[in-house]
């Protein structure tokens, strides 16, 4: 029983940290995009607008919980929760310091990531369907097609990296020593992997399920108040989570100078790496315009998936003959 209690406390602390991260990620994004567009950004609540997330949270919580009359109530209420939960669950297997996973080390760490990103799209799809609104439905359809398609290259690159590391456990993967040429080969996969992740998390420039100039707000057109905020939370927490996964797979996770000796340095290095990747997310949002939906799909099926297959084949050859 005490063990169960420890797990519970770990889980609660982890959720609180990630949700605080979400709050300040919205602040960071607004500030950075403002700088990219030569504006100032939020600067009224607190120094540098640092209290803005708190003000937004209070505002969302005190809004009326309005449920439109034409929706499928059960699914409508369920959808935001289904969107938010997977984003938090992925964290369980990520190592945050030497030999310390966030929740537990499992021998299916990679598969866990694939499985959870697979069910992530349920929230979006069900939100679009239950809203009983054509714009929402179109957003949901786009999201379903996009997520199923981009999961394939994501899986192909993930499997290649697992194969090169020789393990399915993320804790072991980070601690596997690698030759420099091996790092270079892994980094070749990074742009592909990151592109798939942009599509999987519905981030700009692949935010086609919610394009405001075509679909009002896509799948969450009919949502307001806290339920709308939960979709926002899901999106931003997904950004944080996938950044952590990427830094674990491609940039050594918690590793850095002296991180072996001083265990508390692990989370610090991880935080710095995640922050850099989040900056990349926001930078891309501010710089690249959105493609058309058919362009997005064609790019996946005619470029990303063949590239993934080639990468997988070459990685297999490397694993067998060069290691």
């Amino acid at each position: 029983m005490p063990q169960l209690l420890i797990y519970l406390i770990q889980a609660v602390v982890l959720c609180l940290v990630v949700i605080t991260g979400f709050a300040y990620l919205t602040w960071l994004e607004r500030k950075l995009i403002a700088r990219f567009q030569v504006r100032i950004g939020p600067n009224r609540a607190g120094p540098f607008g640092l209290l803005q997330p708190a003000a937004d949270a209070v505002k969302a919580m005190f809004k009326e919980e309005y449920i439109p009359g034409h929706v499928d109530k059960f699914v409508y209420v369920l959808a935001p929760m289904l969107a938010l939960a997977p984003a938090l669950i992925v964290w369980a297997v990520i190592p945050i310091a030497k030999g310390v996973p966030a929740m537990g080390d499992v021998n299916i760490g990679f598969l866990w990531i694939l499985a959870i990103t697979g069910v992530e799209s349920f929230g979006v799809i069900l939100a679009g369907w239950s809203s009983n609104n054509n714009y929402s439905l179109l957003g949901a359809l786009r999201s379903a097609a996009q997520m199923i398609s981009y999961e394939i290259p994501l899986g192909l690159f993930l499997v290649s990296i697992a194969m090169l590391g020789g393990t399915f456990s993320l804790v072991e993967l980070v601690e596997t020593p690698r030759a420099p040429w091996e790092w270079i080969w892994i980094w070749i996969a990074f742009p592909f992997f990151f592109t798939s992740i942009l599509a999987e998390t519905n981030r700009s420039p692949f935010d086609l399920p919610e394009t405001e100039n075509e679909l009002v707000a896509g799948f969450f057109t009919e949502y307001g108040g806290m339920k709308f905020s939960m979709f926002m939370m899901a999106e931003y927490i997904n950004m944080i989570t996938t950044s952590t996964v990427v830094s674990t797979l491609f940039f050594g996770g918690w590793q850095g100078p002296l991180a072996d000796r001083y265990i508390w340095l692990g989370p610090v290095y991880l935080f710095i790496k995640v922050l850099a990747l989040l900056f990349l997310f926001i930078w891309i949002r501010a710089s690249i315009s959105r493609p058309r939906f058919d362009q997005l799909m064609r790019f996946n099926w005619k470029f990303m998936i063949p590239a993934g297959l080639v990468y997988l084949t070459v990685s297999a050859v490397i694993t067998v003959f060069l290691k």
Partner: protein
Amino acid sequence: MSVFAFLIGTLSLAAAIGVVVAAKPVHSALFLMANFATLAILYVLLDAQFLAAAQVIIYAGGIVILILFVIMLIGHDPADHSHQDLTRPAMASLVLGAILLMSLGLQLTGHLEVGTDGGIASGGSPSAIGTELFTRFLLPFEFVAILLLVALIGALIMGRRESGEPEEPAG
């Protein structure tokens, strides 16, 4: 542990009944997802982690989303289907159910033995399953790969546009 397994099993059965009983197809799909998820938990309890992950990746993440996709593409169907003639599907499911029940009964009473040599020795970890697949079960594994390839080509041929001239001659 066994209490937990019993609880999850009950939930799984309830979800399975929900799939059949639910009036709206999307609700059926949701129950199906709940059923797959609880099955995955049962696999974890049986120490078959790989199977659990595969269950979620393929069934919950892939197939149910495809089902939802199709339901949404077809859109709202206002017609009432509750008076449709269901004799033939019912017959088919009765026959299949009887076969399943019979084989389970035979196995439980020891008249039929499947996987006699103790199955997979070292549990359901990915490496154990991978080793088994690429040593003892290599031939069936390769045959399944060919079967999937055939299915893929079949889907390609069926999905090719039929109206108007095809852009290129088939080949």
